[in-house]
């Protein structure tokens, strides 16, 4: 099957600033894909190139097999993009906005579908309200509706939950999940790992214009899962058997790095054999956000 999005050897720089470097990426149809990275990593530049808003310096991008430069018309008609900024045309109402957007895609009579997306996005009673009069959350929904007027098989959402309250975030998540279940390929950019974990199957991490991780979200989380066991023990020196766990001593506590919960019982058994009393025990689970931030800020980190 043709990939939904295929990016080959893509490079882009703005003057001296290298925005994207040798990006290689293929996203299968039907996938829910996350593009992760801190601000300025190149996420928006990358999707702008896919959407045809920015021209690459070299490399090629195809959406559903259509080159975004040479057959831009076809490529754009199979793609829906929800931009990051809350942009709108203050001259028009919600319905007018959607009717015009349909027209740009060559669709003349789209009332049934427009009514349905208005309904599904909870915008039905705002249909004849001027865009200016809408709250930020409502404007965000209209942006999503605009990206859907032509029923695109591939949908890109650029940080859809930035600056959105908890309730709307939940609503957006379930809406986008539904779209994915209906067969749309979804690409989501975000800097929240939590969001990617809740929604996506695969993830690419961008850092300074390079893809540093390309994996399934499950694998990624497993890889960066480092549990640590903190023990305060009634002993001066650690028994030999415990040396195989790399440990550090901090404030009279030993911190053991473990990969698996089973290792805890191993450690406890050894302590029991050695008759060492446990004064205090604490298990530390990783905070995914923290690990993510650490990984992103670690200069030496170049992928797993």
């Amino acid at each position, binding site marked *: 099957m043709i990939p939904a999005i295929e990016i080959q050897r893509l490079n882009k720089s703005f003057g001296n600033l290298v925005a994207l470097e040798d990006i290689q990426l293929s996203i299968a149809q039907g996938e829910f894909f996350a593009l992760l990275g801190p601000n300025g990593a190149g996420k928006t530049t990358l999707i702008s190139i896919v959407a045809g808003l920015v021209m690459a310096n070299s490399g090629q991008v195809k959406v559903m097999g259509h080159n975004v430069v040479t057959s831009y*018309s076809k490529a*754009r008609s199979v793609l829906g993009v929800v931009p990051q900024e809350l942009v709108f*045309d203050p001259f028009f109402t919600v319905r007018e906005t959607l009717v015009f957007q349909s*027209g740009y*895609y060559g669709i003349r009579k789209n009332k049934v579908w427009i009514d349905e997306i208005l309904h599904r996005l909870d915008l039905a009673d705002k249909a004849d309200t001027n865009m200016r009069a809408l709250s930020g959350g409502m404007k965000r929904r209209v942006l999503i509706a605009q990206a859907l007027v032509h029923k695109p098989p591939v949908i890109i959402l650029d940080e859809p939950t930035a600056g959105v309250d908890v309730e709307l975030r939940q609503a957006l998540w379930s809406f986008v999940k539904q779209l994915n279940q209906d067969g749309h390929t979804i690409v989501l950019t975000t800097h929240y790992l939590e969001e990617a974990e809740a929604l996506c199957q695969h993830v690419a991490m961008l850092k300074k214009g390079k893809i540093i991780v390309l994996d399934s979200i499950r694998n990624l989380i497993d890889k960066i899962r480092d549990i640590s066991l903190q023990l305060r023990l009634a002993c001066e020196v650690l028994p030999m058997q415990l040396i195989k766990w790399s440990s550090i001593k901090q404030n009279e506590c030993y911190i053991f790095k473990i990969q698996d919960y089973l290792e805890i019982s191993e450690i406890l058994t050894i302590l029991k054999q050695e008759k060492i009393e446990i004064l205090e025990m604490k298990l530390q689970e990783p905070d995914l956000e923290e690990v993510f931030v650490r990984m992103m800020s670690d200069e030496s980190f170049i992928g797993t």
Partner: protein
Amino acid sequence: MTGFLTLFHKELLRFWKVSFQTILAPIVSTLLYLLIFSHILESRIEIYPGVSYSQFLIPGLIIMAILQNAFANSSSSLIQSKISGNIIFVLLSPLSYFEFFGAYLLASVVRGLLVGLGMFIVVSQFHEVSTQFPFWIVLFVLLGSMILGVLGIIAGICSDKFDQLAAFQNFIILPSTFLSGVFYSTLSLSPAWQKLSYVNPFFYIVDGFRYGFLGVSDVSPYLSLAAVIACFLVVSLLTLNMLKTGYKFRH
């Protein structure tokens, strides 16, 4: 075709929804020019034999208003869309650059025509307005507003701020229209100013348009027509090339 028609329709609605500002206001301000200048100069100047100053001035003012509004339409629509960011909705769509060009151009022409027609209707209530060659009138209205519509697209593409667009408008468009022989015949100018006028493409639009009303003009209407067509082709090719390469839009 639907894409083009939709964008055209949107552009029409955009200025129609604020027609007080986009159609009525320019009609009123141009009528004020007519009121003042014809009052001061009516009895003192006769530019062509048998043609009163008002008769001379009216076609000039009408075409000036048409040109300025054709320019204002595409340029202000584009700069507003760029600054508010909603140009993205058009850029994301499969619309070709040719459709984009055509829609903005035609909307400018329509706005120019509406202002011109409004002017004509009001003015003919108070003055005797002769229309010798309607065909030439229509020809120069269309070509003139097309040129200015295209210039408006160029200005809209190139400007990043309202300030830059205002500079384009005040330092290029306004002097070129004021000095194009709207208020005077270039035959009355010193040779140096005359030469300068003849390299101003706006002069040919005004002169040719006025020929349609009065049947007399500073230069041959055929020369004006050729100059105006050439000018339209040059600015259009330039603009189409900008749009095709994505200059400023798809950087």
